[in-house]
């Protein structure tokens, strides 16, 4: 009986104590440790590269990202072109989209032979830290965005963070090194493709026309950009699409520029403008106005078949441009190279605009000590 009583006491104690343990148990939060260790992983990779190349200049290309193999190839080619243009520099490519990095690393898409393609990409904040830890004496950060919009503002923020040593305590960079970078005016920010409406927009229009003027003889040519939702139209950058269309139309009235996200510039607005110009049938050539041809280009623009057409909601963003124009009485065509639409980085004339931006990048003088004045 005594044993039983002590058993009762034990179970009672358990009943009272078990929940307390639960309440106190930690949530296994490894956030801090993971941040520090990820800096280390990036730092080691860059240090190794720098030790191998013995170069003292770094170029960091920051793209939104993609999971498409043809996009990976476009980034590879871009990197190679940059290495030619900057022989003195180590060139790095990174993705600002976590989801793209995660999915690219587990293999979101297949190559044209059907093989799964897995690629590891880095995150700009960690990679920029690593470039600083390796103490490159000159750093170019080049935005691979098309417009100076929301995505670009994130690139600006990450450079500011870098120059202000805004990292967790265990990952602080050498502040003297950062001061030296500022003093040497050796941190550069390369602007997006359509940065300057006076210079970049006409140049890009000229390059596009050089490639597609033959199509304008045959029908309308519509470019599909991304654009920012109205609420996030940082710097009012959406206006570049309008400016590009105006500039292209000055060359040839058959050019149109629309987006997937910019208010009043969706596919139906593009068609509306075509109709205003009396183009209500005939061929429409569709091109991506994005750095690479990924999901948007393949699905939102070129998507073909019933999956891309919901007749009840014609203007739904799930309905592709291809199906939309075809259902509206046009004959839509998506010109492809090797089975894929092309992204702007794959057009050498356009890539050269980006490279020019890097070469002419200005010292980012606002960056150093701009964020934490007390430091």
């Amino acid at each position, binding site marked *: 009986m005594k044993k039983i009583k002590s058993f009762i006491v034990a179970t009672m104690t358990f009943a009272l104590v078990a929940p307390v343990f*639960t309440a106190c148990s930690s949530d296994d939060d490894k956030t801090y440790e993971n941040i520090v260790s990820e800096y280390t992983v990036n730092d080691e990779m860059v240090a190794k590269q720098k030790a191998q190349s013995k170069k003292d200049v770094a170029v960091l290309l920051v793209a939104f990202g993609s999971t498409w193999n043809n996009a990976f190839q476009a980034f590879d080619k871009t990197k190679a072109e940059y290495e030619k243009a900057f022989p003195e520099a180590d060139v790095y490519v990174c993705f600002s989209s976590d989801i793209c990095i995660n999915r690219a690393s587990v293999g979101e898409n297949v190559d044209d032979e059907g093989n799964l393609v897995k690629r590891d990409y880095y995150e700009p904040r960690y990679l920029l830290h690593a470039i600083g830890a390796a103490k490159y004496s000159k750093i170019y950060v080049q935005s691979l965005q098309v417009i100076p919009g929301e995505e670009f503002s994130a690139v600006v923020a990450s450079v500011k963070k870098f120059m202000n040593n805004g990292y967790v305590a265990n990952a602080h960079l050498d502040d003297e090194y950062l001061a030296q970078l500022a003093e040497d005016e050796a941190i550069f920010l390369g602007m997006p493709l359509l940065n300057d409406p006076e210079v970049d927009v006409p140049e890009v229009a000229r390059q596009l026309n050089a490639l597609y003027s033959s199509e304008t003889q045959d029908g309308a040519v519509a470019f599909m950009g991304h654009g920012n939702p109205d609420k996030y139209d940082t710097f009012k950058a959406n206006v570049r699409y309008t400016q590009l269309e105006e500039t292209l139309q000055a060359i040839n009235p058959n050019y149109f520029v629309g987006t997937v996200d910019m208010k009043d510039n969706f596919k139906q607005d593009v068609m509306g403008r075509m109709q205003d110009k009396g183009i209500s049938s005939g061929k429409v050539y569709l091109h991506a106005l994005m750095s690479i041809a990924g999901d948007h280009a393949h699905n939102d623009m070129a998507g073909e078949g019933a999956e891309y057409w919901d007749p009840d909601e014609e203007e739904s963003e799930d309905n592709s441009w291809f199906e939309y124009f075809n259902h509206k009485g046009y004959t839509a065509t998506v010109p492809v190279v090797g089975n894929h639409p092309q992204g702007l980085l794959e057009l050498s004339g356009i890539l050269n605009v980006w490279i020019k931006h890097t070469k002419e990048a200005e010292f980012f003088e606002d960056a150093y000590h701009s964020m934490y004045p007390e430091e």
Partner: protein
Amino acid sequence: MKKWLLGVTLMCLTQTLLAQDILKEDSLQEVVVTGTGTQHLLKDAPVQTEVISRRVLDSFGGKSIEEILSGLTASFAFSEGDMGSQMQMGGLGNSYILILIDGKRIHGDVGGENDLGLIDPHNIERIEIVKGAQSALYGSDAMAGVINIITKKHTQAGIYADNSTRYGTHNDLRQHNTLAFNFGKVSSQTNFQIQRNDGWQNTAKEYAEAMVITDSKNKTVNKFNNWQVSERITYQPSHNLELYADGTYYIKNINRPRNGTHPSCDVYTYDLRYNNASASAGGKWYLSGDKDDTRRNYLTFDADWNKHAYYYTYTAKHYDYVLLKGEEYGDQNGEWFSVAMKPGQRKLQSDQQRMMGQLKGVFYLPYENTIHAGAEYRYDYLKAPNRTEDGTASDWTSALYVQDEFNKLEWFNLTAGLRLVNNRNFGVRLTPKISTMFAAGDFRFRLGWSQGFKTPTVKELHYRYLHVMGSSTFFNIGNINLDPQTSNYYSANLEYRGKKLTASVTGYLNKLDHMIALANVPVGEIPAGVTTAYQGDGSDNVQARMYKNMDNARTRGIDVTLSYQVMKDLSITSAYSYLDTEANMYDTSKDRMTHVIIDGTAYHKWNASVTYSHIFCPCYKFGVNLSAHGSSTRFYQNNGNGKAFQIWRINTTHDLGKSGKMLTYRLEFGVDNIFNYVDRTMHPYHLGNTTSGTTVHGTFCIKFNYGKRVKNNISLTKQKINYEED
């Protein structure tokens, strides 16, 4: 020793004999508590109550509460979600259904889905179902209704232990263990359960990235395992005071495919984990009278703490966008940041904690009035570091209620209740409830009207998260501008309960205003700072959805149940439910009101079963249950409708050993989905039913009894049934 043996044998013999009477009179003598909080014979319950008795549960042999409710009633519809069970009752989803275990609400949801794995099917004594917000006692937020799971309690003197192990197709294991003892004033009951299933895949086809892939590894139901331990101690210091303390601890893991080759839909970099815990204490104090007095006034008091935490368990390196909070982050404190999670690590997504205090009393007054009055306070705390703006959110609600049952006239019962709710954000609201019952012989006619009031939950207000469902990615966003939901529930019921035949017809109409649902909104609504990381893979694949008040909704239906005792050993039961729903939603993209059927509802649902049981000899009792349930097409606004289905199952039970023995055994064998019905609709389109086709199962139970046991439920009169206050 011989005396002792003789006594036990005699007692058990009596039990066996009486058990047969119990079977016969089961439906007549069933006692229910859920509708009013006081005990009533089912026949005389003022609030229409549906009961699934232990006898039915035993012969059905269901492996989960989902299987039990969908197989034994026509009121529920289930669809397995990634994270739990999406349940519907009368067309309304989980958040409108109050699930009680012994009168206490279960806690925690993920994406509005309750984890029903918390309910151990082997430990259920009976299930009571009350539709609509008809009970003043349990909160007016039970707009669809209340399911009260009454658990088995082994409070008799002596030691009791059992083990039940059920194994079936898909490596399905359900094990339940009980150890209970009672010495003098103290009794203890410990339960331990394990559940496991490897999951299954009905189709390898999946529509993803605007094409049909044929080698998807997504399962129809994911692999999972869970275990739970619970302990309850009761102490009766005097004849008018009972005290209890209990605690539970629960872990569930859901494993998702790792061998997929299409990361946009079937490769996952993290599994899901849930951790629940609870502790409560309370008691019941009889204010007057002696223990044989059935009309003793009493007070009950309860204090509860519940926790429901939800984690990701990473299975590959995965960048997560995390809100850094804490001094250790220095300048980055308060910033959203990409953090690389490593395989094996866990990260808390949400931790819902709830504290409740309740005090209630039942007072028997002159002229056959029974007053039930109580006060309740509830504090909800949500910790969701990356899923709320500030990392945490909280809410409190207090309530006062009073209910009077007026029983003066034999042919008439009136139960009227008022519940006064005071919520931190939404102020005070009074909700009335009235039920009347007219009796004539074996006929009962009931009319009910109740108002419901449901304030937005902490999650609906503050929670936001990325929800990846196969190839579709949603960003679900809480909305602090929500209004509370209100409802008016009207019902009429006609019931006949004869010795052999029971038949009931119920018509109801539930009108809801300001119903809260996720509605598509422009991506621009995703909170600033989160857009960059969450706009997905560049395809704008992310659909932003925000909790919004829909204009209004209504559900109406007719439920019919029928049961007939054909002969002593043979009974048949059947149920049919007709449901018609409509919700009005303002479509911002089209600037117009749209009328829609509530997602997942079907017009017709039914079930039927035949049960035969016979005692062939004192040491062998055989039982067989053949049952079927079905549903017409289930309607959805997106991703197609769920196909109509009907599923048949058979379960046999074999009770071995004389029940007087210290050890008794039970075997069960069964085949579920006899005709191998499988819905192979491709992912992510809706299935009518997620069954994998024919499955088989077998169960072995062993029960151990030691000591003097007094079975109170031998004499099944209303007065003497020793159900605890549920």
